[in-house]
């Protein structure tokens, strides 16, 4: 398609006048039917790379996405922009709603689907009857065992591609090492995939680290920083509770600013409310967990603070990358104490089932098998064995891999079961060690004496662009004198209920209220 035309279509569907770096190249590739692995930095508008082709290509575009809430947000936003033919298929929907979508696949242009549902045999059958013109794997690093968020169901995608007779495939990711890139291509069995890799360093973000002695000192530092700069800010936490607590402290300290918290434990309506408020500049400071950020298009976040140590550099790069999407100077600060390493260590443990639990699950499976009973519901297993969702998903995948679970049924022999048991334990240990290694890299970065920018990106790319402002706290930084663009939100909110009601309902002073 002629270049000029593509820009016109972009304007027509999404209202943007021009492409961001990388978007156009990738779009042209997939429109020509080329399989692409696209690696673009956080905040560069990855989704346009498939949303626009979905509108232009005949047939259906399938997008596999690992996070249901993110999927739902995307669909909502597209619908709000009046982009036609967009829908989703996920486990929040009941059977009837899902059937409705599956039976009408031919009516849609763009379908977001969770990997679990897509790889379900009953679902795949429906897709054989429609023309799938583009198959998109979002957050493609989830397919790699060595990616930082391995999702077992992603490994089944290459089979789905076979069933769909190999439609044009676009794998997208931010922040992946060259090894993981190779692993993605290998797992998808597409050695000829074209690599479109864009550098992930952000010249407009100043990187800063500060070692402190206690959590109290962290709070002091944060307050001092927020006193210096009145800018939209995100503060990342590993724990929901600490995020809530800190939000309360900051709300007290800054009565003239709007502070709130955000985490995955909140109800969906409230999560959307907070996101929208932040984007509308109704909020200044958000204390959040890693659940916040993906799919947020806010250009003017100037300050990102990490209160806890991220589990690996990939997460840090992504979260810090939410700052300064408009290209203006922004600051990313990581605060840490020597004790902080214990939190991610604990979190790593929580991602994997304990050996003793694996043993009990095996016993239980054997008992079920002998009684001729099927595999219980996920929720039941999670409750029964006190497994969290991630742990059971991992274990279930392992059991499937060893052919102990097929569909809903258990197949086992003593021989097979013994072998599988030991292999799963070995796998758990291996994953644990690998995660610890990633954490160790993070800690090394924190403790190193060299330039933060250089050592942060070294693993991912050979060079980086010169920063537009100061480089990092190692290279020298004058804390209080960064020329960050100030933004004081003038939020109108009346304490008087009647004023507030008038304001919301856009009723002028002329109305009589008596």
């Amino acid at each position, binding site marked *: 398609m002629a270049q000029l035309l593509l820009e016109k279509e972009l304007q027509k569907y999404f209202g943007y006048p021009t492409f961001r770096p990388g978007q156009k190249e990738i779009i042209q590739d997939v429109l020509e039917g080329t399989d692409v692995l696209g690696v673009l930095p956080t905040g560069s508008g990855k989704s346009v790379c498939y949303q626009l082709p979905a509108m232009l290509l005949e047939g259906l575009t399938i997008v596999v996405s690992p996070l249901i809430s993110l999927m739902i947000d995307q669909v909502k936003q597209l619908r*709000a*922009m009046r982009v036609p033919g967009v829908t989703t298929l996920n486990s929040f929907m009941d059977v009837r709603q899902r059937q409705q979508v599956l039976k009408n696949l031919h009516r849609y242009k763009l379908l977001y689907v969770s990997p679990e549902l897509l790889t379900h045999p009953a679902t795949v059958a429906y897709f054989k009857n429609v023309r799938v013109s583009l198959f998109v794997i979002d957050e493609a690093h989830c397919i790699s065992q060595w990616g930082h968020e391995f999702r077992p169901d992603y490994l089944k995608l290459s089979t789905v591609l076979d069933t769909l007779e190999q439609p044009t495939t676009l794998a997208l990711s931010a922040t992946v090492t060259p090894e993981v890139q190779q692993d993605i291509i290998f797992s998808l069995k597409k050695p000829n995939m074209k690599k479109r890799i864009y550098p992930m360093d952000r010249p407009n973000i100043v990187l800063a680290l500060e070692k402190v002695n206690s959590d109290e000192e962290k709070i002091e530092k944060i307050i001092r920083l927020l006193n210096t700069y009145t800018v939209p800010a995100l503060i990342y936490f590993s724990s929901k509770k600490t995020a809530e607590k800190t939000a309360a402290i900051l709300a007290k300290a800054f009565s003239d600013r709007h502070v709130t918290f955000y985490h995955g434990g909140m109800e969906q309506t409230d999560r959307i*409310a907070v996101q929208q*408020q932040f984007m509308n500049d109704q909020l200044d400071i958000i204390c959040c967990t890693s659940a916040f950020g993906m799919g947020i298009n806010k250009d003017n976040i100037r300050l990102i603070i990490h209160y806890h140590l991220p589990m690996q550099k990939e997460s840090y790069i992504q979260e810090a990358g939410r700052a300064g999407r408009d290209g203006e100077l922004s600051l990313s600060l990581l605060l840490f104490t020597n004790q902080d390493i214990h939190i991610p260590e604990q979190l790593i443990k929580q991602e994997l089932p304990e050996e003793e639990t694996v043993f009990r699950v095996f016993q239980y499976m054997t008992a079920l098998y002998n009684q001729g009973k099927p595999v219980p519901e996920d929720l039941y297993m999670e409750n029964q064995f006190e497994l969290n969702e991630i742990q059971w998903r991992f274990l279930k995948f392992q059991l499937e891999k060893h052919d102990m679970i097929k569909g809903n049924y258990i197949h086992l022999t003593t021989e097979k079961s013994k072998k599988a048991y030991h292999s799963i334990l070995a796998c758990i240990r291996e994953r644990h060690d690998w995660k610890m290694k990633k954490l160790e890299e993070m800690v090394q970065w924190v403790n190193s004496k060299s330039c933060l920018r250089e050592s942060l990106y070294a693993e991912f790319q050979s060079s980086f662009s010169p920063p537009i402002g100061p480089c990092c706290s190692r290279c020298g930084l004058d804390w209080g004198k960064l020329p960050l663009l100030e933004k004081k939100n003038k939020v109108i909110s009346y304490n008087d209920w009647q004023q507030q009601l008038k304001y*919301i309902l*856009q009723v002028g002073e002329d109305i009589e*209220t008596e």
Partner: protein
Amino acid sequence: MLFEAIILTCIKELNEERSASGIYHLLKGKKGIQTVQDAFLFRLENYYRIYPTLTRDDFERKITELERKKLIRRGKESNSFYRLTDQGHVLLKRYKMKCFYGKRFGDAANIFYSRLLLLIQTLTNRNMGNTTFLPIIDDRKIQYWIKQIYPKIKGKEKNWLKGMYQELYNLLQPFSELEKGIFVHRLTGYKRYGLSIEQLAEKFSQDRHDVILLLESVKHQMYVKVNKEKDLYPHLSFVSKNSIPAAALTESAKTTYRLLQKGYGIEQIASIRKLKINTIHDHIVELAISVPDFPIEPFVSPEEKMEIVQAIKRLNSFKLKDIKNVVPDHIDYFQIRLVLSNQNK
């Protein structure tokens, strides 16, 4: 405090005849017939489904807290049954309970409220010439309703906003400052998203549960008032039109009802529908509760009914098991439940 007061009220009314999880199911609005029947039996139907998002954890935490504060204590017979302490009684007596209409109008009030929120968001955005915004109400049915009625409003956005303002202003008058505040700050308008429950809790220094329940109470009362005085609230009564969900019966109970009306017996219906006898029994109890004048005589003879009623009086209890123990053996649980369902009508 409101959340506590509601739980205390429930414990008081249940009088150690139902366990604490019965209260949880009641507030959450479990559809099962046992919960619905109990709601009527113990005159707690106004609290039915006033807190659908309540989690088991939060509920249990609150029960533990009430116990620690010595407002309730565990019953004599079983650990999961509670009674009020003297302190609990005193506290409850002093508390001015908020008004709810859970079973009768709760669902309708919530449909009314969701429509209202989405309509305000839509009108204020359209009034500013903006047609693209993220709807704050996800429910497809509510979104569809807006689509359907919008042509009637189109071009008159300003007048509608004025009208709705005036009516909401009048409607909110009798409420406390806190309730008014929560209600108006929850509203979403043009480029102005309403506060989340957590934000409201923080803004008004209230407990999260209380914010949810206060808002629920306001919704119920508004709905009832608007429908009582339709002429005073022309805009809002338009919003509340046809918001009562089609009959409170489950689909399955409706089918059983149709077959009963055709003259089929319980066993026949069970075999026609390939369902268990017990399920049909549940349907009949559901019908006895929800359908006015549903005759229970075909299933309980006048003598049997008398036996059961007397047993209830003698025991001064609604406990199925206790009643079963003292009535003649030929009377079964199904018959006891049917008679109980008639008790509070």
